[in-house]
C-alpha cells in the first residue's frame, strides 16, 4: 500500500524530471549546433515557474481552461501504462492497443481548449495536428501490430520482458524499429514535422491564445509528452531497461539523435507530411509486418 502511494506520487515527478531535463538538453544542444552559448540547462523549469506565477491571465471560457487541464491529466494517466524498470505499473489494466487510445485523450482536450480560444491560428494548428496524427498513425499501427504478433502478447510489460538480455526488438525487427523511430519523431513535432506549431505560419498554432498559467500547464504537459514518446519507444524496441539509470541513458541517446535531425531540417507542408508518412514508412512497415507474418 505504502509502495503504491509512493509510486503514485513518485512516477509523475520522475516523468516530469526526465522530460524537463531533455527539454533543457535540447535548448543547450541546439544552441551549440548553431554556435551559440545557449540558455542555462534549467531554463525550461524557470519558464514554467515564470508562467505559473504570472499575475494576470486571460480566459476565453470553461473549455479553454479545461483544455490544458485535460491535456495534463491525460498525460499523467498515460505514464501509468508505460512500464519503467522493475515496475509493471497499471499495464494489467490496459494493453498496448488501449494505450494507443489513452494517448490521444490529451490531444483531444488540447484541441477543445484551443478551439474555444476563437483564434483561427489555433484552429488551423489543431486541424494540422489531427491530420499529421492521421498521417503517422497508419505506419505506427502497422509497426505496433508487427511487434504484438512477434511477441504473441499485447501487454507492454510482457513485451519488455521478452526482450531481456539484449534481444531488443530493434535487432529482431529492424525495419519496424526504423519506422517506429520516424513515427515517434513526427509525434514529437520536431522538424520537418513541426507543422502544428509552425511559428511563422500559424503563430504557434494551438498555443496562439494561451498565456500565463494555462501555458505553464501546457509546458508541463510537454515535458510529460517528451517522456511518454521516448519511454514508449524504449519499451517497445530497446528492451526497456534493468534500472532507471540505463532507462535514462537509452532515452537520452534516442533523444540526441532526434535533436540532431531536428536542428538541421526544414519544414514539410502538411499535406506533404501526410504523403510522406503514407509512402515510405508505410511500405517499410508493411514489409516488416509481412516478414513477421511469414516468419512467425
Amino acid at each position, binding site marked *: 500500500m505504502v509502495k503504491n502511494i509512493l509510486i503514485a506520487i513518485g512516477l509523475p515527478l520522475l516523468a516530469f524530471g526526465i522530460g524537463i531535463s531533455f527539454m533543457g538538453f535540447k535548448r543547450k544542444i541546439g544552441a551549440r549546433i548553431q554556435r551559440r552559448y545557449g540558455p542555462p540547462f534549467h531554463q525550461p523549469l524557470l519558464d514554467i515557474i515564470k508562467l505559473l506565477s504570472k499575475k494576470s491571465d486571460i480566459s476565453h471560457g470553461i473549455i479553454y481552461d479545461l483544455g490544458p487541464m485535460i491535456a*495534463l*491529466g491525460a498525460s499523467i494517466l498515460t505514464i501509468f501504462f508505460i512500464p519503467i524498470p522493475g515496475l509493471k505499473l497499471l499495464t494489467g489494466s490496459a494493453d498496448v492497443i488501449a494505450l494507443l487510445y489513452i494517448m490521444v485523450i490529451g490531444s483531444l482536450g488540447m484541441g477543445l481548449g484551443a478551439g474555444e480560444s476563437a483564434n483561427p491560428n489555433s484552429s488551423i494548428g489543431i486541424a494540422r495536428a489531427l491530420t499529421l496524427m492521421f498521417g503517422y498513425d497508419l505506419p505506427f*499501427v502497422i509497426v505496433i501490430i508487427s511487434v504484438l504478433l512477434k511477441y504473441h502478447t*499485447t501487454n507492454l510489460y510482457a513485451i519488455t520482458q521478452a526482450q531481456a538480455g539484449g534481444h531488443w526488438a530493434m535487432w529482431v525487427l529492424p525495419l519496424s524499429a526504423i519506422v517506429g523511430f520516424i513515427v515517434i519523431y513526427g509525434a514529437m513535432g520536431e522538424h520537418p514535422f513541426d507543422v502544428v506549431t509552425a511559428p511563422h505560419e500559424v503563430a504557434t498554432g494551438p498555443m496562439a491564445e494561451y498565456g500565463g498559467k494555462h501555458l505553464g500547464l501546457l509546458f508541463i504537459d510537454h515535458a510529460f509528452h517528451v517522456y511518454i514518446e521516448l519511454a514508449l519507444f524504449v519499451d517497445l524496441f530497446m528492451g526497456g531497461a534493468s534500472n532507471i539509470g540505463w532507462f535514462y541513458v537509452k532515452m537520452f541517446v534516442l533523444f540526441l539523435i532526434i535533436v540532431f535531425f531536428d536542428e538541421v531540417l526544414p519544414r514539410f507542408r502538411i499535406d506533404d507530411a*501526410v504523403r510522406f508518412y503514407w509512402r515510405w514508412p508505410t511500405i517499410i512497415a508493411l514489409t516488416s509486418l509481412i516478414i513477421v507474418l511469414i516468419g512467425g
Partner: protein
Amino acid sequence: MNMSLMVLLLTPFTGGILSYLGGKIHRSVRYTFAILFSSLTLVELFFYYNKPVNHFVLGKMFGSVMILQINPISWLFAFIVTTISLLAIIFSVNDMEGRGGLDFYYFELMVVEGAMLGITLAGDLLTFFLFWEIMSWTSYLLIIQGGNKSIKAGYKYIIMSIIGANSMLIAIAMIYGKIHTLVFRNVAMLLAASPHGFDIAIFVLFAIGFFVEAAVMPLHTWVSDAYSEAPSSVSSVLSGVLEKIGAYGLFVLLYALFGVSLLGKLMPLRFPSPTIMYTIGWFAGISIVVSTFLAILQEDAKKLLAYSSISQIGYVVLGISIGTSLGVAGGLFHALNHAIFKSLLFFTIGAVIYRTGTRNLSELGGLIKKMPVTFTGTLFGIIALAGVPPLNGFVSKWMIYEALLQKKEVFLLILALIGSTGSFLYVYRLIHSTFLGQLPEKFKDVKEVPFLMQIPIWLLSLGTIVFGIWPGLAMNVIARGEKFFGITPIKYNLYGFPGGNGMGSLKMINISSVFIAGLIVAYIIFALGAKTHRISQYDNYAAGQVVTKDTKYNYSYGFYMFFGRVVNPVFKWSADKIYLAWARSANVFGDYMRRIYTGNLETYSSYIVVIISLVGFLILLGGKIW
C-alpha cells in the same frame, strides 16, 4: 395461452393508432399517448430481461406458422429499438412543432418502432419479412417529412430498400418452395442438408437485403442523402436503430440460419474463418475506411454524421463477421454503443438546427456559450464515437481490435485502427465548427433548447459513461445471448475483461479513476495560479490587426482542405455515380418506350391493325416464316 409477447408487440402499434386519433382531439393527447405507449413498451420489455421465450405461435399464413420468440440477442436489439424510439418521440415534441401532418408523423414513428420490434421478435422468415416491409415503407414516409429535398432522398432510399427486400423475398421463396415452412430452426436444418450452390445463393440474396439496410458499402448510397434530409429525430432513429436492424439481420443470417460450421463447409477457411465471413469482413473494413475519409471532407453536419454511421456500422458488421466469441461480443456491444452515441449526436445536431436553422458547418460556430447542455452532449458523443477511453465506444472497438489480433487478421485490423484515428478528424471538425471558434453575430441571441429536448441528450450522455466504465452491464446480456447461440462467452467482469488466451486485459475503472486523479492534480496547479478574467472573442491575437464584429475571424470552411488534396484524387469516382449512371440509362430506355406507348388511342389502334394484318399475313403463308 401466453399472450405476453403479443402484448409487447402490439403496444407500439396501439400507441400509434391512439396518438393518431388523439391528435384529432388535442395535440397534448397525441403526445401523451405517444410517450406513454413507447415507455410502456420499454417497461414491458424489461419483463423479458432474463426470460427467453422460444416459441410463441402468432398465427398461420401460407401454410407456414408465424412465430414470435425472444432470446437475449433479440432482447438487446429490442432494447435499442424501444429506447431510441422513445427518446426520438420525446425529442420530436418540440423539434417538429408547428409542422403539418403531425398526427400522421407520430403514427408512423410508432409503427416503425413496432415494425422493428417485430423484426427482432420474429421467429420465422415470414414474420421477419412482413415486419421488414412495414419498416421499409414507414421509414420511407418518415424520411420524406423533411421538406422538398427529402422527397428525392426518400426515393433513393425506397428504391434501394425494395431491391434489398425483393432479393430477400426471392430467397424466402426459394426456401418455401422446398420445405413449405419458414421457421428459423427448420430453415437452418434445410440449409444444412442442401447443396452448396443453393446455400450460397440464399446467403448472397439475404446479405444484399441486410447490407442495404445496414448501409454497408457499396450499398450505402442512400444513407448520406436520407440521413441528412430527414427530420433530426428521424435521423437518430434511422442511424441509431434502423441500421442496427440490418446488423441484426446479418447476425440472424450468420448464426441462427447458417452457423459458423456450415459456412465453413461451404467454402474453404481463411485465417480460420469461413471465406464468406471473411469477405463480409472486408466489405465492412472498406466501409470503415472509405466513409471515414468521406466524412472528414463534409461541410454538412448531418452528412458528416451519416458517413460516420456507415463507418461505425462497419465495425459492427466486422465484429459479427469475425466469428469468434470476442468478435461477436464486440460487434454486438458496438451496435448498442453506436445506437447510444450516434443518436445522441443526431439529437444534439438536431438541437443546433432547431435553434439556428442551418446545418452548414461553416455558418455555425461559438455556440458553446449559448447552448452548454447541447455542447456537453456533443462532447460525450464525439469522445465515445472516436473510441477514446473512458467512454463506451472505446470498449467495444477495443474488443473488435483484440478479436482481429487474436485471429491474426492483421490487414482488417489496420483498416479498423485507421478508421478510428480518422474519426478524430471529423468529430473534432463537428464540435469545433458548431460549438467552438467565433460566434457569428446573427446567432447572438440563440438560447439553449427546451427541457424536453434536453432529456434525450442527458440520458444518452449518461449512457456513454455507464457502458464505458461498467461494460459488464452490457456483457451480461451479450454473454447470455452468445450462450444461446452456442458460442462460449469470453471472460468478463463488471469493470472490463481479465484477458487471457491471446487477449489483453482491460479494466475501465482504473483508467477512469487515474484520469480523474490526473485531472485533479492539473486542477490544483491551475487553481494555485493567478485568477483569470474573461475576455470577449474579439479580444484576440491577430498579428496586430484589430478584430471587430464586422471582420469574420474564424477558420471553418474547408477545415481539412489540405487533407483533401492528399485523398481527393482517389475519390473522383464513387459507387453512387455508377448507380446514377444506371438510373440515367433506365431513363433513356424509358424515353424510347414512351415513343411506342404514346398514350394516343389512334396510335394504339393503328398498332392493333398492323399486328392483326401481320398475323393474318402469316396465317396466309401457312404459319411459316421461313
